């Protein structure tokens, strides 16, 4: 048993950490988030140069990593930096089916940080349902045509290529009959409405009206690729939440040591000490569960999905506790935009709204546990 990172991965982690500490202060982050794209294209390219995007992809498509461990390592650092560049949308979600289908051409631009993608899968009525796809795909004489509406598409507006799910056959929630398509968002059949999200960055509602799409893999059999993409996304945001929780915890510890009330640092109060220790325990639990999920990302389906759901459930449960306690222990100052900690708290809490919340994954954990036994 070895819980240590390899030398190469440790170097990558150190490089990322140092870069973010030096080049990504929170005021710049806010500026990037409020920009037109919801992130900085220059910074995205720098991340590309640094190899941080390529670390999310395997060598077969031109990357330098791509394992669960790589994803977790990179995203923990991104969480620490509260990064708004589209690592999740481009480097994980949309990249996943392209990795599965060996599309190194499209991924080259992503790895370099010059291109950005989006994974247009969720739908207005779909909530967290993995196979909830009402959008239709029809094959005509001139190729595939897609019609429907996609919801809360992360980086949907700035992406230069969309990976879209659509249904060829079956009922709205069937796992069979799904297809994934590459869609050029510049065509007339695609309408995008962009908006900010409360924890930074940007998303979009996307309407497809007979848009042309190029299939990825075999049309009608895309569900495993979708599940895989979301699974990678779940691991990524769990690790991101872990990094963000570590920072929220560190900021709070620092505040407890320095904020003086009643003639002593507030951290001298035993009740706050104990609550802080409880956070520490829960964050260690999360770290452990994220490691487990990362190490089994390529295992059989039941093991993999069970571990991913365990991690996401725990991240949702602990995340709320960490975010709320960090704010409470900071007091009024944490209610201000100027403070750092509330922005971490917002990200941590809102991660529970991506790919299924803590209840959804508790349920899913139970289902996959039954399957595994």
């Amino acid at each position, binding site marked *: 048993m070895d819980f240590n990172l390899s030398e190469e991965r440790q170097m990558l982690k150190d490089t990322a950490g140092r870069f973010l500490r030096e080049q990504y202060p929170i005021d710049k982050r806010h500026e990037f988030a409020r920009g037109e794209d919801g992130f900085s294209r220059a910074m995205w390219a720098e991340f590309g140069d640094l190899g941080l995007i390529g670390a999310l992809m395997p060598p077969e498509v031109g990357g330098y990593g791509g394992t669960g461990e790589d994803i977790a390592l990179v995203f923990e650092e991104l969480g620490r930096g509260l990064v708004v560049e589209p690592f999740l949308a481009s480097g994980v979600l949309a990249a996943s089916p392209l990795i599965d289908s060996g599309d190194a051409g499209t991924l080259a631009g992503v790895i370099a940080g010059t291109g950005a993608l989006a994974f247009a899968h*969720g739908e*207005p*009525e779909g*909530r*967290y*349902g993995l196979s909830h796809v009402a959008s239709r795909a029809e094959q005509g004489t001139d190729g595939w045509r897609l019609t429907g509406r996609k*919801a*809360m598409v992360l980086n949907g507006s700035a992406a230069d290529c969309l990976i879209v799910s659509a249904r060829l056959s079956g009922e709205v*929630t069937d796992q069979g009959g799904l297809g994934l398509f590459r869609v050029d968002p510049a065509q007339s059949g695609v309408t995008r*409405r962009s*908006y*900010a*999200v*409360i*924890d930074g960055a940007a*998303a979009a*509602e996307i309407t497809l009206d007979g848009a042309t799409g190029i299939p990825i893999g075999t049309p009608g059999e895309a569900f495993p690729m979708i599940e895989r993409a979301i699974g990678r996304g779940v691991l990524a945001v769990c690790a991101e939440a872990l990094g963000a929780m570590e920072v929220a915890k560190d900021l709070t510890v620092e505040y407890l040591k320095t904020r*003086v*009330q*009643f003639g002593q640092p*507030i951290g001298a*109060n035993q*009740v*706050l000490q104990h609550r802080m220790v409880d956070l520490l325990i829960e964050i260690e639990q999360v770290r452990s569960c994220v490691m487990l999920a990362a190490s089994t990302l390529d295992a059989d389906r039941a093991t993999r999905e069970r571990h991913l759901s365990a991690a996401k459930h725990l991240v949702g449960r602990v995340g*709320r506790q960490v975010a*709320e306690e960090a*704010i*409470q222990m900071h*007091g*009024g100052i*944490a*209610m*201000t*935009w*100027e*403070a750092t900690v*509330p*922005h971490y*708290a*917002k990200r941590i*809490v*809102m991660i*529970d*709204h*991506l790919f299924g*919340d803590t*209840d*959804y994954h*508790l*349920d899913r954990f139970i289902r996959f546990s039954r399957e595994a036994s």
Partner: protein
Amino acid sequence: MDLGYTPEEQAFRDDVRGWLATNLSARLSTKVRRAQRLTKADYDEWHALLRMRGWMAWHWPVEHGGTGWTPVQKHIFEEEMVAAGAPRIIPFGVNMLGPVLLKFGTEAQKDRYLPRILSGEDWWAQGYSEPGAGSDLASLKTRAVRDGDHYIVNGQKTWTTLGHFANKFFCLVRTDPEAPKRQQGISFLLMDMDSPGIEIRPIYTLEGEHEINEVFLTDVRVPVENLVGPENDGWTVAKYLLTYERTGIAGVAYSKQALAGLKKVARDQREGGRPLDEDPHFAARMARLEIDLMAMEIFNLRVVAAAGAGSAPGVESSLLKIKGTQVRQEATDLLRRAVGPYAAPDLPEAFDEGWNGEAPGPDYALPLARSYFNMRKTSIYGGSNEIQRNIVAKHLLGF
């Protein structure tokens, strides 16, 4: 034992409800329901209507233009106001300073300020907390030095809610830094917001809104007749005011309204092909909240009824504040949770009056994440829940 309202109280409720139905404009209640930004003009409009009905000074005795209501009537009034979507009554003048002046003010102060509070001519703001004096309010440093007929005030105040709407400012200052105990040597002063040397700066909240402010005081000259209560005895005044701030802080009415809203949202949202309120996890969360709220409503009424019978609320108000904020925060958590991915879109422009754009998801989803984060303040302000626990623990254990 009879946990129901008396016929008189029921009639009172009908009266309040009827008046609200006729007088609260759809414009205002729509803004409140959509969690849109209320302007000073909105509050002034609402306060004026209440004043005409004689309900503005609802905590004051009749002889000063108040209602003389019993605690139960006040509770009913509050509940109906919230249920109707009325703007809140801004408390700093009418619910905080008013009662303070009635108890500690000179005749001249009462004559001058009470009518102006009632008429809406003066909008008061509060200057208690300082950057270094939050939970430990008695450590405040803003200094007032006597100079003939004036105090010269220097220092900084913070968390001044809606101070940018105010023309008046009540403020705790240190007049005797040598006093043997920190609570001694503090005085309570009234100021004009436009006095030379007062500068007010916005503090933006975590969701980017301007509601609170910091106030800088540099050589501000305040006439000595603006001292409320004896010099160096402002702590007594301050504490009296804080007990007023705490009545109704359980926020039962707000939590009941949030629960009603939650039930509608959970019926409308779908999870795995059925309404969210049929999802066992979510249904259990809602039920736990409802049970807590039911219990707290009775708890609150027990305290209200005891106050009506003449007993002063003691540690009960601290207990109610803690439980009240927990329940209200849980309600906002579930509301945010209920809308799934659509909790995330943030459209600041949607909170301006007259916005008629299209929400990415359901309209009701728009303010829910903001409201969840904003409501974190309730367990921090008005004496944090930690401070409330200290108060109760001291009473209980004597340490």
